[in-house]
């Protein structure tokens, strides 16, 4: 395949997927005669999005969800990198804490959300804690892996050059671990959005997740679809931010180099 073609391909497939989805959507409504309370027409959803964006409190709801997501994610990032670095370095500590980590991995964390709402109230705090908890583990596990994965040949180079502790960290360990941190962030940011929305959904009085509950209660299928659409965009933009950060921080890494250039 020509390099031009493989660059265009994701765009072509995106457009094709959207067109296909809309066609099936309309077909299902026409063939099965679906009620607009169950599945509204695509164009009605689009006008629903317009109404939603112009509605009262829309931007303040976006702001609330965004704040919860970003603050929770930042806490997860700091704790994940800090604890991950410690556990990655101190083998016995990692072994000792392994049962706890596995246990907290296996617990369906979404099931804990009602508990956090009881403990920390219906406000923003409980959502931030939920977001932090959900995005913490992928970051932690990736950082542990990253700290361990520093190449032993690279370590030999630094040792033969009699590099100091700080030099070894700055020139070798930090850049070696960065791709792993960013991989953890890529997964973590998606979990963060899920945490914020489900938290608001189960016990909140503001935010985009709360909008889902109100539109469900009012049986406004159009608004419900519109909120889902906005949330998809919301999650996508945050994910994009992490990907762009990755391109900026580790342009040398295989995961950020175009597949067209990678075939060497």
């Amino acid at each position, binding site marked *: 395949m020509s390099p031009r073609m493989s660059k265009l391909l994701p765009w072509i497939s995106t457009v094709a997927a959207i067109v296909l989805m809309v066609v099936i959507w309309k077909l299902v409504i026409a063939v099965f005669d679906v009620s607009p309370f169950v599945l509204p027409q695509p164009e009605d959803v689009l006008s629903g999005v317009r109404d939603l964006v112009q509605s009262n409190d829309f931007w303040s709801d976006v702001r609330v969800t965004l704040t919860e997501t970003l603050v929770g994610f930042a806490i997860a990032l700091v704790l994940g990198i800090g604890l991950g670095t410690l556990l990655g370095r101190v083998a016995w500590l990692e072994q000792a804490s392994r049962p706890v980590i596995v246990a907290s991995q296996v617990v369906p964390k979404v099931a804990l959300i009602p508990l956090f709402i009881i403990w920390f109230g219906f406000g923003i705090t409980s959502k931030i804690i939920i977001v932090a908890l959900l995005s913490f583990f992928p970051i932690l596990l990736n950082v542990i892996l990253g700290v361990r994965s520093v*190449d032993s040949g*690279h370590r030999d180079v630094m040792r033969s*050059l009699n590099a100091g502790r700080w030099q070894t960290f700055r*020139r070798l360990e930090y850049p070696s671990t960065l791709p792993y941190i960013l991989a953890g962030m890529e997964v973590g940011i998606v979990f963060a959005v899920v945490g914020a929305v489900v938290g608001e959904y189960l016990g909140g009085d503001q935010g985009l997740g709360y909008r889902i509950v109100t539109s469900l209660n009012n049986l406004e299928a159009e608004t419900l679809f519109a909120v889902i659409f906005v949330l998809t965009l919301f999650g996508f933009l945050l994910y994009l931010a992490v990907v762009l950060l990755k391109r900026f921080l580790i342009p*040398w*890494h295989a995961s950020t180099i175009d597949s067209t250039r990678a075939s060497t």
Partner: protein
Amino acid sequence: MSATTEDRSLGVPHVSGALPDGEAEIELRGVSKRFSARKRETLALTDIDLGIRKQEFVTLLGQSGCGKTTLLRILAGLTQPSAGEVTISGQPLWRGDHRDDDALRKLGLVFQDANLFPWYTVEENIGLPLLLRKVDKTERRRRAHELGELVGLQGFEKALPRELSGGMRQRVAIARALSYNPEILLMDEPFGALDAITRDKMNLELQRLAEATKATVVFVTHSIGEAVFLADRVVLLSARPGRIRSITEVPAPRPRSLDVTAEPNFQASVLELRRQLTEDEERVAGDGGVTE
């Protein structure tokens, strides 16, 4: 020359490569290395005496597992010997558990893998040792260009390691090792992963580099031809436990062209070394290895 003594416990030759006092730039005296893993002790090297002269080119030859890499790592200060002493220009490399910084500064190291940092460009990789020694950026860049030219990397200064071929990466690794003008170049099968044609070419260039930089070179290889072609002296190591089996002088003047490989003297040395290696292999296969 060095005396051959029969190692009584094993009945195989064990040669001392010690030089007369004051003649050696690098000296190993009674060096042994034990590794212990899971209650099993392995004697990787036993009682190695070896002196290497200034500007000499010495190759360490042996089959895999004979301890040649361990020996080079001991010379490089990456592995501490269990017994014995290493001195570089008369200074001991180890003082207790610490390595002597002055001695380390005299050593440049090239590994089998280029071990370049993927986040640095060619220029930054070459300049890494200077960066660690706090040389300023302009000087680092100047030196990187100078060395890039010496090893044939012009025009690739801004490239990332992943964009280079295996041979080019090794050139960067050599330039990096040379960046701070070490007097001694230690090389651990540096061309082992390259194809035969590139390897021949790199060997020719290495001779030119050794001459231009006036460096003493210790070069580990498992290729008999390569060992004889490059060396003033070939040190053959024997496995289990690792020790010096023989030392062969190669009198042909350096730098050599590939024509040397056709000469009867060259071929005789290769054949004799091959005979010794085969004998060794049979012995090791026969007794199933000696580990204590």
